[in-house]
């Protein structure tokens, strides 16, 4: 599978998906007006990855901001990862948030309560 590597912009995050190493990373800002357009290729990639995943998929989500239009798309990403986890593969989700950013921690906890995969909440120090 071809990896995905997308550089970040002021409105969209940096994305690195690599099936060989099992790394799935989304970092930066996700505030596009049309988030489905941005996330559809990522969700499609994960759908393909589901058939031959790495033995361990390590997911790093480190968002500074995301809008509500992205929040449903991010849930779609997690649902694909949940399917990989449910089919017996190891998946770890690391949810990063900046020191004192309780809103971002809470956003991670909201996802954690919907998605049945172990989440690790990691506070980034200044």
């Amino acid at each position, binding site marked *: 599978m071809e990896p995905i590597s997308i550089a970040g912009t*002021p*409105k969209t995050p940096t994305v690195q998906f690599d099936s060989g190493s099992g790394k799935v990373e989304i970092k930066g800002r996700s*505030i596009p*007006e*049309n*988030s*489905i357009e941005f996330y559809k290729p990522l969700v499609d990639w994960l759908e393909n990855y589901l058939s031959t995943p790495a033995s361990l998929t390590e997911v790093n989500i480190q968002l500074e*901001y995301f*809008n*509500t*239009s*992205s*929040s*449903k*798309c991010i*849930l779609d990403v997690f649902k694909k990862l949940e399917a990989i986890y449910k089919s017996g593969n190891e998946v770890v989700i690391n949810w990063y948030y*900046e*020191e*004192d*950013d*309780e*809103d*971002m921690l*809470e956003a991670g906890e*909201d996802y954690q*309560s*919907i998605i049945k995969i172990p989440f690790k909440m990691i506070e980034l120090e200044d």
Partner: protein
Amino acid sequence: MAFDVQEWLDNYNKDEILFLFKGEITGTLITDSLDKIESKTEDASNKAKKKIYNVLVECMQNLFHHSSVLPTDGSTKEQGKYGICLLSKNSVGYHITTGNFIQKKHKDFLSKHLSHINSLDKDELKDLYKDILNNQEFSEKGGGGLGMVDISRKSGSKLDYKFHDYHKGYYFFSLNIKIVE
């Protein structure tokens, strides 16, 4: 007397205005505005800064997606897809104020949605957010009724809003969000 946008806006003159936009809302404008806003909130705590930014993104994208287009035949003072976004500061904290035009059917929907949000406490808002996120269909652009719930959660205060009669079935919808440091 008919509702006057400028008179309404003048009410905020007593506060310190950090950012003001009036006119047609576009995607590029949102990007440029957010850049400016970041430099205007450098005095705020990290926590408040993030809340301001988050709420502003939602507000401006609401204006972008949901404003009705006013007639351009000269029958109204404002025209087209007109919106206002104001960031101000006073002794209470930061205020994000928006205004845009909507039609009657949207007013009825929004009015119900907002009064429901305001009737909920913190935990109920969290549950509503998760319910909409997980169970409801979204529009093709990815929107779907989460914006106002998110704004209310981030601000931690009730939404202060009003519908002003404007012109032949058009209403000016004003929203004021308080962010306390």
